């Protein structure tokens, strides 16, 4: 029997097939899923903010796309994944409310998604597909067995990328 491991907000974890890994209700946050297709070791990061270098109180590495991805890859490699084989899928980064006042946070969803693309590129990890942006929340489930990334949203048919 396989388990589904849960990841919270500003959190990350790894799993090994046939287990899957999930995070619920992604809003402006992004869910970056990684796997090594040979060892079938997978991981998921639920990050809130794009860049750990511009914010002072950043003891929590999982909060940021950049430091979170570094940590996730480290954990996966320690568990036996091969760094050079890693592949990625990306979801989230919505704008939940039409109007946000704090100018630092305008389009934070979009910037989270962009930060993930940039960081993956810098790490030479191939981004296979993504479902990002727009104005609705997403629940995601990732299966490192197949690399299937299932995305559920309110009032929309379930899809996988």
């Amino acid at each position, binding site marked *: 029997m396989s388990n589904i491991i849960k990841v919270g907000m500003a959190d990350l974890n790894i799993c090994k097939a046939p287990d899957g890994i999930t995070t619920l209700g992604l809003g402006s946050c992004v869910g970056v899923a990684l796997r090594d297709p040979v060892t079938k070791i997978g991981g998921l990061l639920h990050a809130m903010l794009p860049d750990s270098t511009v914010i002072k109180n950043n003891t929590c590495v999982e909060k940021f796309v950049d430091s979170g991805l570094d940590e996730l890859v480290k954990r996966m490699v320690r568990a036996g994944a091969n760094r050079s084989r890693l592949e990625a899928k990306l979801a989230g980064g919505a704008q939940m409310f039409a109007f946000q006042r704090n100018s630092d946070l305008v389009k934070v969803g979009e910037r989270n998604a962009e930060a993930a693309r940039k960081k993956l590129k810098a790490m030479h990890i191939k981004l296979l597909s993504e479902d990002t942006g727009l104005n609705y*929340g997403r629940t995601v489930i990732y299966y490192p067995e197949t690399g299937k990334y299932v995305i559920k949203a309110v009032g929309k048919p379930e899809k996988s990328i």
Partner: protein
Amino acid sequence: MDNNSAFDAIDSNYLDVLREIGNIGAGNATTALAQMLQRKVDMKVPQAALLEFKELGEAIGGEETIMAGVYMVVEGDINGSMMFLLEKESSRHLVNHMLGGFGDPNAEEFGEMEISVLKEIGNIMTGAYLNSLSDLTGLKIFPSVPEIAVDMAGAILSVPAIEFGVLGDKILMIQTRFTDDIQIDGFFILVPDLDSYHRIMESLGMA
């Protein structure tokens, strides 16, 4: 200033004061709701807690619960976020009651008119909450124009959470749940930043 260690100094006495704020604020707001509905609405004992972001979903009873969230940014002497969350069925019920037969009472999605009604309900209720907080503390509080989203609770809460992610690794949340016997189930959430927290305490003679 190190935001987290400063928030960590919040002890149970202070949390009691914050709970009392939740009590008074939400008390006024649920009275407003009871008047609108002409029905008794109960309020649970407020919770005041310093949470890690990953604990947020549990705190409101599950990230995937579909809710209508009315969100406003609060400025003035108190800075932060104010949120009014109403479970989807409750929202439907409330909207139908307010529209008195206009609109489609069984539609799966809310139309423009329903959304506008929900926003106004959120406005009235958070207004009642913030007014009583302002009266109690003598502090000036200016809420922004409300914004609304109907979606998973986790996704809605990611918005105030991200604002606090900029400041630290934890979020100070004053949460009050209200229900009636059958149809109403929702939350108020006030998330003040650290300076505002200090100003609230000062104004109440606690600092």
